């Protein structure tokens, strides 16, 4: 074994500082990336991970500090400059053009005047595919590829001009357990060939599983590191505990889930969805004979890879999408013909996954967003005239109850962070007698602490008798709070099964449509 000090680091960051108005995103960061090592960067949202990647990949210029590549001090002027120096980044959101072929996507980044140089590109693609040990068909359309395959193309793109450092920003967020497994293989192979890999995540288990070394960021500073020796020699529980303390400070209880309470067998059925189908634009239905029934207070988890009909199901339940066939029954009454507002009045609530796009009206105040679905209703309006006092009072109460961090209720909701915005949405949907609440990816983009708060709130509500449909791509969340779980795959919903430990692999198989398990 070679001691770290004897190897020339691929990249060294020395005293990197970057400040934005009002916030120091990176403060005196020292980070060493060694060849043949996966370096996990762990931290909550806003800890400074993105800024650090930005600096490494040439998107952001540091205010102070030094970057050394192979021992030499360099300035990374631009993303292109970073690529030329062998530092490639795979971002959380795909940069590929879905309508183009793999090869054309790769050529997009290559500036060769009028000549496209397909032969050379084919050769390079072959070389990198061999390095990754994956099969990539250069002529397939990117949009037709599975997400895992798309990510492999992204990795090829990142390494196109040189293989030194590969930065992976939350790479598993879109993948199935099986897809994540393949990614681990690819990453392992890359480090065995001498690359340095930076793995950015806010999921603790992944950071520990994949990383040879783990660095924890908090509020722009490095607050701790777990060395390869420590990772090997300490028990997993011990390391987890230490890292949690680094992330959250001394209070390390935030990652604990809230396990579901037992539903009594005598509880009556409140909500039934029977053979609901929705036609799609193409030959395949968006929803295909979806059925399930829920008891009062029950939480049904709906797992699945994004885009298999979960959003459409949520919209159908909320009334935002028309049902072509089938029935939705709330407490014995058919509601599938009722409008969104009528269902809302009957206690059907929908927490959308699209916080900015449809969940809130950005320029309006927090207070008005709290009553967004009650415009014109008493006591907030009387004879159609607005009563600001009543709205403010209501908003202040919800802000208080749900611990929303906002200067006051009159600021534009767009100025709030994602987590606080989500708390406002939860407050709005859970206020005033909810009966059935449909959550679509309610923790998407939230940090660990807010995620825990949101999950606890959902479980609390269910305990108080709210029937819950919980759509999520995070199996760990489903296992933590749901009573039963079903999987959406190509518009079909599997038979719900009771949640028990170790169910993840079975769900993963259902999510990818493979029947073998």
């Amino acid at each position, binding site marked *: 074994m070679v001691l770290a000090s004897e190897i020339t680091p691929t990249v060294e960051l020395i005293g990197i500082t970057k400040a934005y108005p009002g916030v120091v995103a990176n403060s005196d960061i020292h980070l060493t990336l060694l060849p043949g090592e996966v370096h996990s960067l762990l931290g909550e949202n806003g800890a400074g991970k993105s800024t650090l990647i930005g600096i490494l990949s040439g998107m952001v210029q540091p205010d102070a500090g030094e970057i050394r590549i192979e021992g030499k001090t360099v300035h990374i002027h631009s993303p292109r400059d970073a690529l030329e120096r062998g530092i490639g980044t795979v971002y959380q959101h795909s940069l590929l053009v879905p309508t183009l072929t793999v090869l054309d996507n790769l050529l997009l980044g290559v500036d060769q005047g009028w000549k496209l140089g397909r032969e050379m590109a084919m050769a390079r693609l072959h070389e990198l595919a061999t390095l990754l040990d994956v099969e990539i068909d250069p002529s397939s359309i990117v949009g037709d590829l599975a997400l895992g395959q798309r990510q492999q193309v992204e990795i090829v793109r990142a390494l196109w001009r040189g293989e030194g450092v590969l930065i992976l920003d939350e790479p598993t967020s879109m993948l199935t357990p099986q897809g994540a497994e393949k990614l681990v293989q690819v990453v392992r192979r890359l480090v065995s060939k001498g690359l340095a890999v930076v793995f950015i995540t806010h999921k603790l288990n992944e950071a520990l599983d994949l990383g040879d070394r783990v660095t924890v960021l908090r509020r722009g500073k490095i607050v701790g590191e777990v060395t390869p020796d420590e990772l090997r020699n300490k028990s997993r529980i011990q390391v987890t505990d230490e890292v949690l303390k680094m992330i959250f400070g001394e209070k390390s209880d935030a990652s604990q889930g809230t396990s579901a309470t037992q539903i009594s067998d005598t509880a009556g059925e409140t909500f039934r969805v029977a053979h609901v189908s929705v036609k799609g634009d193409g030959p395949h239905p968006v929803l295909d004979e979806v059925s399930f029934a829920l008891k009062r207070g029950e939480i049904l988890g709906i797992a699945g890879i994004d885009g298999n009909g979960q959003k459409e199901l949520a919209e159908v339940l*909320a*009334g*935002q999408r028309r049902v072509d066939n089938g029935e939705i029954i709330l407490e014995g009454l058919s509601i599938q013909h009722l*409008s*969104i*507002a009528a269902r*809302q009045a009957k206690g059907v609530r*929908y927490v*959308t996954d*699209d916080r900015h*796009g*449809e*969940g*809130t*009206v*950005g*320029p*309006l*105040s927090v207070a*008005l967003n709290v009553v*967004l*679905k009650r*415009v*014109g209703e008493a006591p907030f*309006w009387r004879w*159609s*005239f*607005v009563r600001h006092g009543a709205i403010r009072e209501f908003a202040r109460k919800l802000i208080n109850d749900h611990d929303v961090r906002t*200067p006051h209720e*009159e*600021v*534009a909701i767009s100025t709030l962070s994602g987590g606080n915005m989500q708390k406002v949405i939860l407050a709005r949907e859970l206020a005033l007698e909810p009966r059935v609440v449909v959550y679509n990816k309610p923790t998407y983009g939230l940090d660990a602490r807010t995620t825990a708060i949101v999950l606890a709130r959902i479980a609390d509500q269910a305990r108080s008798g709210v029937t819950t449909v919980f759509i999520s791509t995070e199996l760990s969340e489903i296992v933590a709070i749901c009573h039963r779980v079903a999987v959406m795959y190509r518009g079909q919903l599997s038979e719900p099964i009771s949640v028990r430990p170790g169910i993840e692999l079975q769900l993963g198989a259902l999510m990818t449509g493979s029947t073998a398990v």
Partner: protein
Amino acid sequence: MSAPHGGTTVALAEHKSQTESRLERVSRSMTNALIPVVGAFVIGGLLLAVLGRNPFAFYGNVIDHGLIGSLGRQETLIRMAPLLLIAAGLMIAFPAGIWNLGTDGQYVMGGVIVAALGPELAPHVSGFVLFTTLFIVGFVVAAIWSLIPAILKAWYGINEIISTLMLTFIGLRFSAFLVKEYFYDRETTVPQTRVLAVADRLPRMFSSRVHIGLIVGLVAVIAVHFVMRNTAFGLRLRIVGINPKAAIHAGINMKVLTLAIFTLSAGFAGLAAAINITGVDGVVRAEWNPAIGLLVVPLVFLARFHAASVIAFIAAFAVFQVGGESASRKADIPNFMVLFMVGLLLIFMALGEYMQLRSSRKHQS
């Protein structure tokens, strides 16, 4: 086409910015509105100078004939009435993100029916009943006419910018057809409706030529301002305008609301026509097309849907229109100068909007 949304945000944002006082906000919005005006005047002045005319004399004449002279001032006030009513309608549609650009057609359709009906009704009913009936008729006819783009938009998602603009052409032809075929006055040789007797026109104020239509226009603009800011209906429109997806999510009935926006907005244009016919014209000729609706569009945006600013800008525009006509005659240049200035105003407005967007982006990053 982001202007109505941006405008909405600025004019209707209810939350008070913590760092900005009310005074600062008012002065900022004043500057935002005045810079395009000053810019238009400067460039317009340069053009006049290039043409060998004295710009100061020209602008002096504009003020003299549009504002200071008694006849000109009365004419200005009379012209304001229909402009204000059209503006009131646009103050409903634009914040909701509905581009009703068909007010000219709606105006003419409402006007034709009012002009045809007025002389028939006048002998049978008294003044108040006559005017109220004709106002309602003008409003309703234009509203019905606007149901075509409204239904196309609400049910089939067809872009109202195209449909409303195109329907103006159809409306103009159709109204000409109505006048020539059914409503023509058999006692004259030119194709036109029967004339509403001067005795049956709208009452005038302050022993001048200015009729009470001006009051109706002012009340309409102020009422719309109030409704947009203080009622559930107004808030719904603003939500739809800022974020239509959020409006659907919130359970707002988009179809009904879209119909309401079109019919109200067009209705005000029809009312504008009814007021101009009962107040001034008294008659509609075939091929009649005053084409004032589209001129109001930039003014409403410049005023950012605020009643006081709308009234101020329409007053200034009317002064310029009335004064510009005589000033152009005196300077021996075509009357297109007024339109040219409106065009400049639009360009400067777009520039201002762009600069503001850029500086706010800079501010954020």
